[in-house]
């Protein structure tokens, strides 16, 4: 496929959007870079250089007749996990590499994937099952599981509300863990049959940055040390915020009631 200069720039922008979306869905760095390189080559670039870290992507493509094109994209959110869109993007890249579609069509398909977020009810059910399941898993009773599930709903609600504000992930972890710690602590004082530790452990599983940590290690193993180290440090700070919030709440409950 031969592209005009104008189309080449359009393609580069399209590919950067794709890379940004991949990062936002929780793809590893190597997957982002590899996807951009394969896509560029599929569209006729002689040479493609893609570089990504968690906060920026640069892409240079050399076509036969023209000078190289370089575009850069700053990434602001790259810590999400959305396997639904990740898989769609993966399918799109597979089919495009096999048989490239016109750039305008690619743009339309990308926008379609970007808008197709998972429904909220799925997130709610997921949180309920995960928190409830793990509260019982770590040794809680069925009542502990149900309470953890109820507080999972509160956590979802808070996460959604905080999503509309400027708050950072560290701040939101601190705030959410403090509030839920306080809530669970108070409830357990009122209803002595509940086990505070089991309920909190179930809810901690929702907030613990396990995925970010796993991905950071996989990034470092894949040779993307910068991204891996940045994300590992970030997730340790998030975990510390989480611990700080819960500990403060536990101290307040123990000292006052």
């Amino acid at each position: 496929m031969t592209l005009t200069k104008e189309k080449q720039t359009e393609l580069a922008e399209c590919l950067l959007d794709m890379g940004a979306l991949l990062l936002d869905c929780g793809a590893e760095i190597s997957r982002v870079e590899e996807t951009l390189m394969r896509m560029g080559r599929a569209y006729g670039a002689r040479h493609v250089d893609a570089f990504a870290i968690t906060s920026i992507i640069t892409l240079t493509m050399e076509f036969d007749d023209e000078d190289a094109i370089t575009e850069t994209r700053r990434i602001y959110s790259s810590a999400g996990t959305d396997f639904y869109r990740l898989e769609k993007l993966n399918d799109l890249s597979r089919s495009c590499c096999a048989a490239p579609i016109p750039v305008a069509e690619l743009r339309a398909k990308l926008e379609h994937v970007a808008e197709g977020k998972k429904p909220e009810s799925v997130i709610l059910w997921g949180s309920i099952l995960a928190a409830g399941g793990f509260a019982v898993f770590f040794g809680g009773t069925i009542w502990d599981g149900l309470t953890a599930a109820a507080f999972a709903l509160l956590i979802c609600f808070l996460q959604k509300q905080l999503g509309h504000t400027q708050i950072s992930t560290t701040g939101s972890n601190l705030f959410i863990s403090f509030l839920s710690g306080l809530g669970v602590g108070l409830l357990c004082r009122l209803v002595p049959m509940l086990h505070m530790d089991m309920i909190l452990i179930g809810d901690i599983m929702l907030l613990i940055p396990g995925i970010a940590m796993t991905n950071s290690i996989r990034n470092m193993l894949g040779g993307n040390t910068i991204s891996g180290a940045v994300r590992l440090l970030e997730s340790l700070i998030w975990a510390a915020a989480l611990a700080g919030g819960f500990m403060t709440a536990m101290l307040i409950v123990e000292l006052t009631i």
Partner: protein
Amino acid sequence: MKQILIQLVTAFIGSLGFGLLFGLRTKHLFWAALGGMIAWGIYLGVYALVPELFLANLCASVFAVTYAELMAHLRKCPATLFVVTGVVPMVPGGSLYRAMDCAVNGDLARAGDYGHKTLVVALAIAAGISFVTVCRELHTPKT
């Protein structure tokens, strides 16, 4: 025995929950949750034979990632989808909580113990992932 059964069932439910939370497609959900459950079963089995925290978690995580690679191959999707749901029952939420609890109550010796446990488990999971990744890379020719 009853305890083991409860753990296996709740590991399945918990993995299923995380699968939903991360937007896994319906057709993958069962297989993802099954991976988490078997991984925990392997942890329990190894721990019963050799009560060594690192080894048991390492074996379980090696299984979880191998399973993820196999599923990715069979079901034509990225392995990441199944890695997360496979290792999630091993995530040391329990010992992290106990470490915090002991620290708040001033029992620093036990807090250190649980903190140490948390780290060992996290390292074992990471080592398991590394091990499988390296094995896969050995079999992939250079592009």
